[in-house]
């Protein structure tokens, strides 16, 4: 027991989450009309998990014979995932009621997916990485198709599954090549001996295929094709969950691989820079042409993948800290935006075009103000948190002599203002054509307001978070 105790304590957040998930599973099978119980259990469980994860940030360690990293970045990412799961679950309840699909299994799947994410962030071994990705992905495939009566939702699920399986194949192949060239699957071993193997093409090809598998989850160009279709068809809060939680989870692995010790050779640096530039350009420019808000946010999420990849390509402390900051801020702004869209959406994927938001500023000023906050934050306009994430990332790129990439990034965020602002303009400066309805519960409203306030708080006092981030690795 003495041997086990430190392990159990250090993986407290993970254990709590698994326990909550299993509890919900039991509740679902025992109680009739279990949905409210499952909902509140999940919410309470996630809050407790956050509470357990926060103090652990300061402690660094490893557990299970070097299979897991604990504390530090693992806990930081866990908190991001818990927040994403919490917001998604809260927003989903109202949404699922509208779509006649409010079942406790939804929360269960979100919790299981979150367990997968936590494993990805904490993984110190590629086997754990793989298992974590699969646990997360399988739950997301099902969640995307959760509205079983909707053709779009089914299509979304099937497409995500087929392409996801394809991507997994390459990810696994990459892991095999890495094992073949180094004889180890330990991430600690790989990062420590990076220079030794950096000249080996086999090793680099392994890394490359690993990046391919993760770039798919992130939604980076040219592995982005699924993103618009899947986000559009999936239940709206689930789209938000994919864009924030799943993206952060995939980034946690790449950061763990490279940015931890700031080494990646010229090949990986170039590769990441190309992916970043392509994602920023395609995501932002194509978003302009969209008329459906969910598709617009889907392309915007591709663009944001590009911004964050810029930080990785820079491969220095600025870039890394910028991504860590941005991922948390992005979780709030993007989930907030998807949450508001889910409030507005009506039966049968209706009320999802820009025109449906006309005059929201006068009919529903509360929602319009919040939506504007999220849009301005996404566009990177100070004093909202989105600005600082971008700011750090681009400073990192300039420091790494990738000024061209920073220029592309800033130019593209100028372009992005065009479509984020369009929604704000439509809300405030156009007259309502039809009566808008929005349905949301008090708890959802409270969480959206909280998200907006946190964005403002992080924008005014970013140091408070950055001070923590710099101690993570």
């Amino acid at each position, binding site marked *: 027991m003495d041997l086990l105790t430190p392990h159990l304590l250090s993986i407290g957040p993970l254990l709590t989450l*698994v326990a909550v998930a299993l509890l919900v*599973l039991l509740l679902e099978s025992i109680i*009739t009309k279990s949905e409210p119980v499952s909902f509140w259990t999940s919410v309470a469980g996630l809050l407790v998990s956050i509470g357990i994860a926060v103090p652990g940030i300061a402690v660094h360690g490893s557990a*299970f*014979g070097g*299979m*897991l990293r604990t504390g530090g970045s693992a806990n930081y990412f866990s908190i991001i995932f818990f927040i994403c799961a919490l917001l998604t679950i809260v927003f989903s309840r109202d949404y699922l009621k509208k779509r006649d*699909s409010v*079942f406790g*299994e939804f929360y*269960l*799947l979100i919790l*299981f*997916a979150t*367990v*997968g994410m936590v*494993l990805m962030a904490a993984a110190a*071994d590629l*086997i*754990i990485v793989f*298992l*974590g990705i*699969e*646990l997360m992905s*399988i*739950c997301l*495939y*099902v969640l995307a*198709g*959760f509205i*079983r009566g909707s053709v779009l939702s089914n299509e979304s*699920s099937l497409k995500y599954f087929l392409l996801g399986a394809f991507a997994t194949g390459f990810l696994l192949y990459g892991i095999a*090549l890495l094992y073949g060239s180094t004889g180890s699957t330990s991430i600690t071993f790989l990062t420590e001996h990076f220079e030794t193997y950096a000249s080996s*093409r*086999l090793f*680099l*090809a392994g890394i490359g295929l690993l990046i391919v598998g993760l770039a798919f989850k992130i939604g980076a160009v040219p592995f982005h094709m699924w993103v618009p279709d899947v986000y559009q068809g999936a239940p709206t809060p689930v789209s938000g969950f994919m864009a924030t939680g799943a993206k952060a989870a995939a980034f946690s692995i790449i950061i763990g691989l490279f940015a931890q010790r700031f080494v990646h050779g010229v090949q990986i640096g170039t590769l990441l820079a190309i992916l970043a530039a392509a994602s920023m350009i395609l995501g932002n420019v194509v978003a302009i042409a969209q008329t459906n808000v969910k598709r617009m946010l889907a392309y915007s999420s591709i663009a944001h993948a590009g911004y964050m990849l810029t930080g990785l390509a820079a491969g220095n402390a600025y870039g890394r800290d910028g991504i860590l900051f941005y991922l948390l801020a992005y979780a709030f702004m993007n989930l907030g935006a998807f949450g508001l869209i889910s409030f507005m959406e009506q039966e049968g994927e209706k009320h999802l075009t820009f025109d449906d938001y006309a005059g929201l500023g006068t009919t529903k000023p509360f929602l319009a103000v919040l939506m504007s906050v999220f849009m301005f934050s996404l566009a990177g306009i100070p004093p909202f948190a989105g600005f600082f994430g971008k700011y750090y990332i681009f400073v990192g790129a300039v420091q790494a002599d990738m000024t061209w990439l920073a220029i592309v990034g800033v130019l593209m965020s100028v372009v992005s203002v065009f479509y984020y602002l369009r929604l704000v303009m439509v809300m405030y400066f156009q007259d309502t054509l039809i009566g808008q309805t929005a349905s949301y519960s008090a708890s959802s409203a409270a969480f959206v307001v909280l998200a907006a306030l946190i964005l403002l708080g992080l924008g005014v006092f970013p140091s408070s978070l950055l001070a923590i981030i710099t101690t993570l690795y």
Partner: protein
Amino acid sequence: MTVDAILFFIVAAGAVASAVLMITGQNPVKSVLFLIVNFFCLAVLYLILHAQFIAIIQILVYAGAIMVLFLFVIMLLNLGTEEKHVDALNMKRSVAVILSCIVLFLILIAIGLPAAGTGGLPASALVNGTVETIGRDLFRQYLLPFEITSLLLLGAMVGVIVLAKKHFE
């Protein structure tokens, strides 16, 4: 060339051939049968690598259980021979083949062709394949992945039930 090497090339060729036939086959049942051939070839490859336990599991689980499941599904869905729309797929196929060949070519460059017979098996591989070593590793170093796998299966089961159940309460 050693006997191992000769055996390897024969079985590997069998594995590739059966995989290609499985994809191109018009009849689903035939495809499944080629898949079984493919699994057997893989099992032999495992044996050549002294991984007896995995070889047996490969046959028991995949060729045995999973294939039977596939066949059941095919029977239940009553799938006949695939409808003829070869014309429609021709161009797609050629694109797929070309792209895949380029990927293969690049991977081959990355791997590089080692001189024949230089590799050989590391000594540890001779004992690694036994049930004892696998069991020991699985319950010591790889205990956590082993446990996570159970979560993965649980999650997948919940997912399948959600998607397949006829009526939610």
